[in-house]
């Protein structure tokens, strides 16, 4: 009996102490004590937590890296696909712009029938200024047909196969075009060169021409229709001792960047060579 009698008092005392502590805690009287105890513990807890997270990262990193790499590869593939799409769309926009310009050009000259063709190559010889287009005799193209762009005169068809054609540019050294200078209303001949520069020749000495004058086809000779824009006079060379003036010409067509051309399919070139008298030999 003696050994068990103090226990209820101990238990009651402990319960009362606990209730007292709880009551003090609920009343906020233990806050300074709690703060004083927790203040040195918090940094230790932070230090331990940081180290634990570092260890956790080390052990879980391989899975995350693989996932990130996979995701990165997916995103890179997506970027590449989108970049390709952007390039394709930009090309389509450029093509539409060119085609719109060509359509405007065709509408402005309704008397002509046009066939559009893409430039697919150029002559392998640097001496010859020719381009190759992707339309041929199957599309109704014939030798001698004039070729234009939305800017102006490009050249004429020199040779035709079933699905392709060779176009002699007006910059070719062997190309000669009869032109008219505006507003002077003077006829001249346009001559290409090996440097792709085009020059005007056979301009009468008394003709009043100046830089900026427009050059249009005259239609003489029957090789080209009249009134197709060729370019502008860049500079005039006049010598008192020469029979004619000459001028260098800035073409309106950028022959380096030409992509799509129009062929005037209803124009029939006229071969006037039989009408040109041959020189008779002097006896």
């Amino acid at each position, binding site marked *: 009996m003696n050994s068990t009698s103090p226990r209820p008092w101990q238990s009651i005392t402990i319960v009362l102490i606990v209730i007292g502590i709880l009551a003090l805690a609920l009343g906020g009287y233990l806050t300074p004590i709690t703060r004083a105890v927790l203040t040195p513990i918090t940094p230790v807890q932070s230090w331990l937590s940081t180290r634990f997270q570092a260890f956790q990262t080390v052990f879980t990193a391989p899975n995350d890296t693989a996932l990130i790499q996979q995701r990165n590869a997916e995103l890179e593939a997506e970027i590449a696909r989108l970049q390709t799409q952007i390039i394709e769309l930009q090309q389509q926009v450029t093509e539409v712009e060119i085609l719109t310009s060509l359509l405007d050009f065709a509408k402005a000259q309704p008397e002509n029938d046009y066939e559009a063709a893409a430039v697919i*190559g150029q*002559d*392998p*010889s*640097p001496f010859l200024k020719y381009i190759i287009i992707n339309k041929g005799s199957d599309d109704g193209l014939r030798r001698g047909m004039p070729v234009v762009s939305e800017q102006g005169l490009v050249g004429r068809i020199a040779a035709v196969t079933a699905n392709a054609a060779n176009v002699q540019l007006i910059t070719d*050294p062997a190309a000669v075009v009869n032109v008219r200078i505006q507003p002077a209303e003077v006829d001249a001949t346009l001559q290409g060169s*090996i*440097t792709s520069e085009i020059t005007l020749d056979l301009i009468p000495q008394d003709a009043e021409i100046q830089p900026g004058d427009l050059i249009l086809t005259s239609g003489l000779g029957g090789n080209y229709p009249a009134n197709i824009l060729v370019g502008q006079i860049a500079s005039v060379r006049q010598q008192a001792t020469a029979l004619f003036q000459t001028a260098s010409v800035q073409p309106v067509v950028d022959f380096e960047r030409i992509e799509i051309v129009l062929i005037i399919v209803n124009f029939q070139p006229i071969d006037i060579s039989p009408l040109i008298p041959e020189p008779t030999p002097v006896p």
Partner: protein
Amino acid sequence: MATLLGVVFMGSATILQVTVVGRINMLEGAADLVLLVLLGWVLHARAEGVWQWGVLAGAFIGITSAQPVWLPIISYLSITAVGYLIQTRVWQIPLLNLLTTTIAGTLIIHSLTSVYLTVIGTPLQLSEIFNLVILPSIFLNLLIALPIYSVMTAITNWVYPPEVEV
């Protein structure tokens, strides 16, 4: 086999020349991929069918160009002859052979073309031809001659594996 390869390689080289290489210009000159592929084949001792390759090169260029077909055929056959002669009779130094035949080949092609154009009445000036076409073309051809030759060497070794001494 050699002729079949010639059709494939010369056809491909001509397409590349017309669409890509010919548009990369220095002044008025351009590299001649067909010439370099032809030389890359001719300058290998084990290569066969070099004359067929010469004819094919000329024919492909003649078909795509505005010049008459016989002119490039003659040009490329002449180059084949020069390359064959140098390779078999003169030197056995591949690099020297390549550089010499590249210069000679460029000169042959452009000289024959300019002579033909002059004969048919195209106004050309000798100084312009040399300064603006021939010299830049030689430079561009020399620039890409070595890579093309390396590729052709690999192809020749693949077609005609070198004999191994036991």
